[in-house]
């Protein structure tokens, strides 16, 4: 089976700066791969590249069988990106937000209810406008959007950030469930110990290049 992510010499620019400067990375289906590296190393750009948000200007890049250099829009529906920004409408309720983004991906009401329930948002928070939520509750809502869309590839940028202990445990549980369901996960996290527990493999991103972490 074709890998979920296959980058060969991928170059991506942020402005004029090559945030990915010939990155090589292969992630097999069902794998959980942890991206390590200092701030500014290119982790977020790598995740955004895989999501088809940052164009790959040189090298080869295939995600879920789609060539990102020529066909980056068609892969997007099958991808879930949890970024630093929550991507939620402040003036809509938690449920309306999750329902909108879930329906956009073709999910049904059952998926929405299940996601709200899984993230602990099925109670009184369901009808609260997102603008009135705490940072942690907003993060949970973003995770509910991600779960409800049932993506094949999860791209998680600091998924534990802003969450309490129970929330961080919940993220680990979601990753485990996603893998059982056949999804692939690529995550970056500064909570290394926690992330290492859920990851099958680690790679280090430095200066826009990717290299395997030996023995990890």
């Amino acid at each position, binding site marked *: 089976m074709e890998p979920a992510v296959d980058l060969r010499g991928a170059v991506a620019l942020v402005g004029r700066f090559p945030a990915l400067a010939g990155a090589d990375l292969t992630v097999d289906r069902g794998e959980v791969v942890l991206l390590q590296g200092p701030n500014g190393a290119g982790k977020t750009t790598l995740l955004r590249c895989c999501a088809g948000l940052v164009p790959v200007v040189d090298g080869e890049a295939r995600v879920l069988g789609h060539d990102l250099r020529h066909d980056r829009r068609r892969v997007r529906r099958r991808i879930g990106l949890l970024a630093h920004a929550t991507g939620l409408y402040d003036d809509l309720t938690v449920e309306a937000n999750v329902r909108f*983004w879930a329906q*956009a991906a073709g999910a049904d009401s059952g998926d929405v209810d299940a996601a709200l329930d899984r993230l602990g948002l099925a109670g009184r928070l369901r009808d609260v406008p997102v603008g009135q939520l705490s940072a942690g509750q907003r993060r949970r809502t973003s995770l509910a959007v991600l779960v409800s869309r049932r993506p094949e590839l999860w791209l998680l940028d600091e998924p534990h950030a802003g969450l309490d202990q129970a929330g961080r445990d919940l993220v680990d549980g979601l990753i485990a469930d996603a893998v059982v369901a056949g999804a692939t996960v690529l995550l970056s996290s500064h909570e290394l110990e926690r992330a290492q527990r859920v990851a099958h493999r680690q790679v280090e991103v430095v200066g826009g290049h990717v290299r395997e972490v030996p023995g990890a």
Partner: protein
Amino acid sequence: MPDLSSIGRDAWLVAGKDLRIEARTRVVVNQVAPFAVLVLLLFAFAFDSSTRVLREGTPGLFWIAVLLSGLLAVQRAFSLEAPDGLRDALRLSGLNPAGIFLGKVASVTLQLLVLDLLLLLGVVALYDATLGAPALLVPSVVVATLGLAAVGCLYGVLSVGQRVASTLLPLLMLPALAPLLLCATQAVDAALSGTSGEGWRWLVLLVAFTTSYLGLGAATFGILLDDS
């Protein structure tokens, strides 16, 4: 061949979402509508000494008020996706870009049609205008408003997220709307004066203009959303 059913479904989803946000925030009702009425009032003050000038200029003044209000409505429609990663979320949503465009157009059109009605009542009350030929007036107003929304949404996506969005949008939008303003003014002029024969020809031009922009927007919105 585009999948028309998925475009329609996505347009419905986007329009419903935008209208739900408007129902909750009431920005158009509480801010844009009073602004539109204020513009009509200012014209009335400016031409106070001549009711005849006001009555003769009603079609143009009406459309300028609609156009200025439309600018605000379009800015509002695209400011919804400006903050906190929403543009990226929209790109990743899986929604058909043509559906997003048509949904935005539908939502802005519906809101502007309510404003149109308010402004028509305003010109009758303030400018002493008479609605001579409603059979021409109604389709002219609906088609011109749809065209205004289509142009606005096409250029709105270009300006969203830019630091200069509030000044860039009028610069892009107003020149493109000049032909629409001309056709709409002529069609409404004929409708108000009850001489609808000439007005139907202007309506045909309005339909051509609006259809062109709807097609152009549906075809290019995905590229513009990616590059904005």
